[in-house]
């Protein structure tokens, strides 16, 4: 089976993520999927903006009462850096150095997990302040958008982890290289969404 053929640095193709037809299909199909995800998040952003600060009465906290800069900044840094580390992983994938790729992916996963941890911590704070999913339309919209993104992060973590585990024993080949590549695309996309979340939800929320 050529897809599982062992390669050397010399024989490893320049664009392993697109070297076979299956890989090309996967690559393109995933981009299309991201196009659809854009609309999905667009709808959630739209809903959030329409329902921002819409609460039943004044006892409910509003955006400007809730969001705190240090936490958001830290979370942003975790995610941005994890984007860079996954770029490093793909760099090593292209150079056919499997161990280094795995290492960088591990760092990526670790950073992603830190981000998630922060998010959980943050949500718990909000719940204490009376800002829950069921407390107001604002709450529902906030948790739907940010939670959906968080869900994507969690899914990305599991995905990358399972790819790492599944292929730990057999190294890179043309069958799994596209999978790693696509997973990293997904990771970047999550980052893109976060850039808008920290801008539109948090920063704009703090501005009022």
């Amino acid at each position, binding site marked *: *089976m050529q*897809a*599982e053929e062992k390669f050397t640095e010399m024989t490893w193709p320049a664009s392993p993520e697109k070297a076979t*037809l299956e890989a*090309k*299909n996967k690559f*393109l*199909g995933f981009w*299309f*999927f991201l*196009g*659809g*995800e854009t*609309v*999905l998040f667009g*709808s*959630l952003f*739209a*809903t959030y903006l*329409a*329902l921002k600060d*819409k*609460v*039943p009465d004044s006892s409910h906290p509003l955006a400007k009462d809730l969001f705190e800069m240090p936490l958001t900044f830290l979370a942003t840094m975790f995610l941005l850096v994890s984007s860079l580390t996954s770029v490093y992983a793909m760099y090593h994938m292209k150079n056919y150095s499997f161990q280094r790729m795995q290492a960088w992916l591990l760092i990526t996963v670790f950073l992603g997990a830190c981000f998630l941890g922060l998010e959980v911590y943050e949500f718990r704070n909000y719940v204490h302040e009376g800002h829950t*999913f*069921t*407390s*107001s*339309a*604002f*709450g*529902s*919209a906030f948790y*739907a958008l940010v939670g959906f993104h968080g869900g994507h992060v969690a899914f990305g973590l599991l995905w990358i982890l*399972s790819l790492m585990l*599944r292929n730990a024993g057999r190294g890179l080949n043309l*069958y799994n290289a596209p999978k790693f590549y696509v997973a990293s695309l997904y990771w970047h996309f999550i980052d893109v969404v976060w850039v808008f979340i920290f801008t539109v939800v948090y920063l704009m929320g703090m501005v009022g």
Partner: protein
Amino acid sequence: MSTIAQKKGFGATVWDYLTTVDHKKIAILYLMAGGIFFLAGGLEALFIRIQLAVPNNDFVSAGLYNQILTMHGTTMIFLAAMPLIFAFMNAAVPLQIGARDVAFPFVNALGFWLFFFGGIFLNCSWFLGGAPDAGWTSYASLTLNAKSHGVDFYILGLQISGIGTLIGGINFLVTIVNMRAPGMTYMRMPLFTWSSFVTSALILFAFPALTVGLFLLMFDRMFGGNFFDVSAGGNTIIWEHLFWIFGHPEVYILILPAFGLFSEIFATFSRKRLFGYSSMVFATVLIGFLGFMVWAHHMFTVGMGPIANAIFAVATMAIAVPTGIKIFNWLFTMWGGSIKFTTPMHYAVAFIPSFVAGGVTGIMNAVAAADYQYHDSYFVVAHFHYVIVGGVVLALLAGTHYYWPKMFGTMLSEVLGKITFWLFLIGFHLTFFIQHFLGLMGMPRRVFTYLPNQGWDTGNMVSSIGAFFMGIAVIIMLINVVVTQVKGVKVGNDPWGDGRSLEWSIPSPPPFYNFKQLPLVRGLDPFWIEKMEGKKGMTPAEPLGDIHMPNASFLPVTISFGLFVAAFGILFHVDDKPWALPVMIIGLGITLVSMLIRSVKDDHGFHIHKEDLENEDKGVKA
């Protein structure tokens, strides 16, 4: 691995279809499932028409009527029309572009089973406390107010089948971009392939809005969300926007493949190349694009204000231009041609005036100030049945007759086919033409009955009689199918004699690998070109070699089935049923384990060896 088809037992055939990843078999699955749902939706339509035949009728009760109405619309759109379109896309697109399968055969099967289980789930509602009853649009204020679980079935059922549709759309996009045979450039693709491409793109961008809308509604109804709860700051117009951002493109998702099918049929039976091919492609893309700019024309009366109404009105009208381009191109395809009036051609020809009548009432609806009168009246019902039945359903019936030989290797009876056609066409106009006037005379839609002496009695009676013509037509078509399959007379590669595109260059039904050697495409209508040069078939673009094929798999069924089970758990957890949570966990478990197996177990497919292909040649000759 021998490729020679063997006679199989019934059980083996069923197992074969349950595990198939072959686009041609998936096409048959879509055709059967979509067909059954069409019968269900049609039966519901008949109940609607019986109830409305006379004033103050009590054939069904008010609550039941709303359920029937909702299920009619939902079933027809999501479970009949779309899957039937997917049936023809699966049957024809890979063949038309000279591919051996779609880009992701496994995903293709998964898409079907998700749709199927979603549809079954939705229909389970009939037996579990009542079907959804808030209209196919499920406006949020009414759905939040609905007491029964019907709406929950709608939410979860559509969510499951919607995922199936979405991945199906992505699959076709990739297939068309990446899998075209050598020489099959974009501007040589048959128009059905083009329209499938644009339709898939519309699916990709429209369905996420529905997904989000359904999620929000699910959270509101089942998990205490407040998106649409006005007293907690929510807003129900959000649902309306999300629904129509999906819903308007959806109607073009339905009609574009219909346009594609008719383009093939007009060209074939006029023995002429499609007139204005490039402007047809352009118009298709333009309709797709404009389709995303006009959704708020369903919301003129909501109170968006005159500026928004005016913008959306004018944007909507613009769609008449590309659609007109198509209509005239079809007329001029026939102009100077040699028109053979086969059954598919009957449908194609009847489609033109029927659809134009529906399209122009669409433009009338777009006149925002006047739409305040038409909206939610039978005028709108007439409009959309004219475009849907006069466009989409006629195309599906035409496609069934046209592609039957390619899918099954037998030819439906032309005599019965034409009887079906005439009954259906007459019934269709009888049913819906008069509804324009009912609407203008003040009859609102979605009423389960009406009082006498409002001037609507005759019109409704006529309309109901028409529906029964359609019912008889459909039954005759079923008879046609049974008779044809029992007779089982086999046909050759090009049973219509005038085939133009690649699918007619290979046997009917094609071998499971489609093309022994990928064909070389030398222009638009490649098979026609070869025929005109006196050749029997296509020139191969590659030497005979091993063919790589995907493995069959049962996992698509289990993944979908898991979601089906989980949906019951989610739905009944609201009632604090003790078994709900376990059921949900078990269902999701089935799905996740199946997905895990899929991702951990490498699936490299298998090869058909060159020698076997050669042997088969000899076997056929011997």
